[in-house]
C-alpha cells in the first residue's frame, strides 16, 4: 500500500522517516480495523435489533469477564504501542558524536543558520547526504519551532535556552522547513529550504553560496527578486506601494528618492544607503517607521546584495518597473580570512 503511504505522508528524507512511517501506517490500519469493528457493531445492531412493539429485551446488567477482557486487551495493546513509539523516539533523541553542528537562531520571521566555520545563511541551508547533522537552536524573541516534514523532525525553539534536533538526510534535493509554533503575523511565511547536497556540491556552496547566481549574471534584478522572496524581505516590504502594519517602507519607486529620516535629516536612496540599510538597519530610520528590522550582516552574500540593489532600482519611479539596471553580478575576489564576513 505504498501509494497510500505516499499520499498521506511526505517523501521520506531521513533514516527516521521510514521508521516513523512504519509505526504510523501500522497505527492507521489498526485504527481502520477497530473503527470498522465499532461502526459495524453499531450499524448492524441498529438494524438487527430494530424496534418491534412488545418485544422484551434481556436484562443483561453486566459481565465481569467481558469487562476484564476489553480493559486488559486494549491495555496490553497500548503498552506495546507505547514501547514501540518510545524505541523510535529514543534513537531520535541522542545525536551521534560525529554530527555536523549547525546553529539556528530564529526570530520573527526569519531563520538564521550558522555553520561551524562561521558561515551564515538566511532561510536556506545545505547539508551533506548520509551525514548526520545536529541543529542547536535558540530564539531571539518568541517561541518558534523547527519542523522539517520530510525528515519527520520537529522541536520548539525557546528564547533564553538551547533546544536540539538531529537527523541523517538520505535523499538529495530540496526539503521544506517550516515554523510550527505560532509566532505572529509572519508565522506562515517563516519558511526555509533545506538542500541535501553530495560532497562536491556542498563544498561549492560553502565557498560561494552555491552556483545558482551564475545563471543570473546578466539578470541581476531577477536574482534580486529571488532574494527578495527567499530572504524574508517580502514579509515586511511590498513592491506595489502598499504598506502593512508593523512593516517597512515599500520599495516601489524609492530608488533615487530623497527620503526623510525620523531625525529630520534627508538622505538619498542610492547603493551605499541601501547596503547600509541591510547591514546596519538601525543607523537610518525613515520617518514614521519603527527600528525593528533585523540586520542581515553575514546573512547575505555579495552577489545577493548586488542583486537586491538591482531589483530595487528596477522598481524605479516607473510603475511598470523601469529600465533594468545595467550592472552585471560579480563576486569580489575571495579573501580567505574574512570570507565569512564579506559573504
Amino acid at each position, binding site marked *: 500500500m505504498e501509494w497510500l503511504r505516499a499520499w498521506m505522508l511526505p517523501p521520506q528524507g531521513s533514516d527516521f522517516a521510514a521508521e516513523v512511517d512504519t509505526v504510523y501506517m501500522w*497505527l492507521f490500519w*489498526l485504527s481502520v480495523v477497530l473503527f470498522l469493528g465499532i461502526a459495524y457493531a453499531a450499524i448492524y445492531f441498529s438494524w438487527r435489533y430494530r424496534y418491534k412493539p412488545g418485544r422484551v429485551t434481556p436484562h443483561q446488567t453486566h459481565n465481569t469477564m467481558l469487562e476484564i477482557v476489553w480493559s486488559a486487551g486494549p491495555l496490553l495493546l497500548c503498552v506495546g504501542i507505547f514501547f514501540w513509539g518510545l524505541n523510535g523516539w529514543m534513537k531520535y533523541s541522542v545525536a551521534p558524536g560525529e554530527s555536523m553542528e549547525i546553529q539556528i537562531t530564529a526570530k520573527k520571521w526569519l531563520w538564521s543558520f550558522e555553520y561551524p566555520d562561521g558561515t551564515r545563511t538566511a532561510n536556506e541551508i545545505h547539508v551533506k547526504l548520509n551525514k548526520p547533522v545536529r541543529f542547536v537552536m535558540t530564539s531571539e524573541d518568541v517561541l518558534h519551532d523547527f519542523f522539517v516534514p520530510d525528515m519527520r523532525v520537529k522541536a520548539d525553539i525557546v528564547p533564553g535556552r538551547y533546544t536540539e534536533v538531529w537527523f541523517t538526510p538520505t535523499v538529495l534535493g530540496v526539503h521544506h522547513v517550516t515554523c510550527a509554533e505560532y509566532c*505572529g503575523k509572519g508565522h506562515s511565511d517563516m519558511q526555509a529550504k533545506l538542500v541535501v547536497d553530495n560532497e562536491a556540491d556542498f563544498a561549492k556552496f560553502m565557498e560561494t553560496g552555491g552556483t545558482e547566481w551564475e545563471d543570473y549574471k546578466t539578470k541581476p534584478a531577477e536574482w534580486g527578486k529571488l532574494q527578495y522572496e527567499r530572504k524574508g524581505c517580502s514579509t515586511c516590504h511590498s513592491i506595489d506601494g502598499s504598506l502593512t502594519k508593523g512593516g517597512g517602507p515599500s520599495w516601489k519607486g524609492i530608488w533615487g528618492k530623497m527620503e526623510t529620516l525620523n531625525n529630520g535629516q534627508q538622505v538619498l536612496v542610492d547603493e551605499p544607503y541601501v547596503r547600509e540599510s541591510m547591514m546596519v538597519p538601525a543607523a537610518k530610520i525613515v520617518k514614521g517607521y519603527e527600528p525593528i528590522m533585523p540586520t542581515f550582516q553575514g546573512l547575505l552574500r555579495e552577489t545577493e546584495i548586488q542583486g537586491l540593489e538591482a531589483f530595487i532600482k528596477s522598481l524605479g519611479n516607473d510603475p511598470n518597473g523601469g529600465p533594468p539596471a545595467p550592472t552585471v553580478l560579480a563576486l569580489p575576489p575571495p579573501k580567505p580570512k574574512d570570507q565569512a564576513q564579506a559573504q
Partner: protein
Amino acid sequence: MENAIKSQTRIADRPRPKINYLNATHGIWSWMSTVDHKRIGVMYLVGVLGAFFVGGMFALLVRLTLLTHDHMLFGRLLLTADAYNRVFTLHGVIMVFLFIIPSVPAALGNFVLPLMLGAKDVAFPRLNLASFYLWCTGAILAVVGMIFGAIDTGWTFYTPYSTTTNGTVTLMTMAVFILGFSSIFTGINFVATVHKLRAPGMGWFDMPLFVWGIYSTAIIQVLATPVLGITVVLLMLERVFSIGIFDPKLGGDPVLFQHFFWFYSHPAVYIMILPGMAIISELIPTFSRKTMFGYRAVAYSSVSLALLSFIVWGHHMFVAGQSQLATVIFSALTFLVAIPSGVKMFNWLGTMYKGNISLETPMLYAISFLLLFAIGGLTGIFLGTLSVDVHLTDTYFVVAHFHYVMMGGTVIAFIGGIHYWWPKMTGRMYSEKWGRIACTLIFIGFNMTFLTQFILGSRGMPRRYYNYLEQYQPLHAFSTVGSWVIGLGMFMTAAYLLASLRKPMDAPDNPWGGTTLEWTTSSPPIEHNFEEQPVLTKAPYDYRPETVAH
C-alpha cells in the same frame, strides 16, 4: 417510528398542569432574578448557543479564507494575515471558554440534574444564578475585547508572544478568569447537590449515569479551574508589570507557562467530554429499551477519567523542551487514560446488543457520537506515540483530532441531549423528519471537513497557518465545502427547533419511555419539579416488563 413514541405514554394519562416553570411568573425581571435551576438552565442554553453561533461564524470565515491559496473570493481579499490570526484565536477562545466548557453542565446539567435526583433544585440556587451572571460578565468582556482590537495569540496564550504582542490580551484573560469562576461555582454546586439532595432510596449506584458523568466533571471543575485562574493572573502580571516569571530576559521560563496552562487545560478537555459521554449513557439504554450494560464499569470509568486527567498534561508538550524523562512518563500515562474511554464504548455497544432499537434523532446523534468519538480517540493514540507525535504535533492532524473528540464527541452529544430533553424543557416535540435530515447533514459535513485535515496534517501542513503550500489547496478546498454542509445542518436544526416553539404544548410526560425520574413529572415540569417528593423504588434503566411503571 411514531409507534415507538406513542406506546410509551403510559404515564401521561394525567392532565397537563396549567402552570409550569415557564409561565409561573412573567416579565423579564422574573427571569433575571430567578433561582429556579430550570430557568437558569434555559438562560444558559440560549447564551451558550449564542456563543456557538459566533464561534461557528468565525470558523466558517477561517475555512473560507483557506479555500483558495491567495485568500481571494470574488476578486477581493477576505482577510489579511493579521486579521486571520485574530479570527482563529477568537474562534478558539469563544468555543472553549464561552461555549463548550459551560455547555452540557450549565445548560442541560442545570435543568436535568435535580430532576434526575428527585430534588426541588440544586444545593445552592443563588450561587447558581451567580454562576450565570459571571458567565454573562465574561461574555461581555470578551465582546468588548473583540471590538477593541481582539487578540492573535491562539487560544493557548503561549508566552512570550502573548506577553509582548499588542491587542486586548489582558482584557480577554480577565474574561477567562471570570468565566473560570463561573465554572468553579457550578462545580461546587453540583458536587454538593449529588452528595446531599438525592431522593430517598437513591444510593450512589442507583443514580443515573448522567449524574455520575456530571459529578465527575464537577470534581474536575473544582480542582483544575483554580490553576487556570492563577495562570491567567500570572500572565496578566507579566504583561502589565513585567513580573518576569515567563520572560527569559528577566530570569523567567516561557515553558513554565505551558506547564501551568496545560495542568488546567488537559483536565478541561475531560470537563468537555465527560458530560457528553454522560448524555450518551442516557440515550443508548433509552432508545435500546434495554438496561445499561456494565453500569458500574461506566460509573467507575467516569471517576477514573476525572482523576487520570490530572496526570497527563505533558503530552501537549512533547516537543516543547520539557525533560526527556517527563516526556516518557507522560506518554505512558496517556496510554493509560485511553482505557476507560474504550470501556465505555464497549459497554454502550453491549447495551445495544439484543436491544429494541428505534432511531429517533437523539439516537442518531448517539450513534454518530460512537463513530466520531471512536475516530477521535483512536487518533489520540497516534499523538500519544512518541516517535509519531514528533511529526504530527503542531500540524492539522492535531486540529482534526481535537475537533473529532470535542465537536464529533461533545457537540454531537450536546445536540442529541437537547433533542432528548426538548420535550421536557419546552413541552413540545420537534419535527422528527427534519431532525434526521439535519443530523445526517452534520455527520457528512463534519467528516468532509475534518477527516481531510488528518491528511493535511500528516502531509506536513502546520496549524495556525495563513499561507500554505500549493499542494495543500485541493484538500483545504474540500474541507471548506464540508464546513458549509455543517453550517447548513446547524441552521436547519436551529430553524426546526425554533419552529417547534410555535406549536401548542402537546408533548407527553415521557415521549421516549425513559426510566429516570425526570420523565415522571410533567413536560414542562412545574416550578417545584415534583408534586410530591419522589421515592426511588427501582434502579434506573430497568426495562423488565414487571418493573416498568403503569
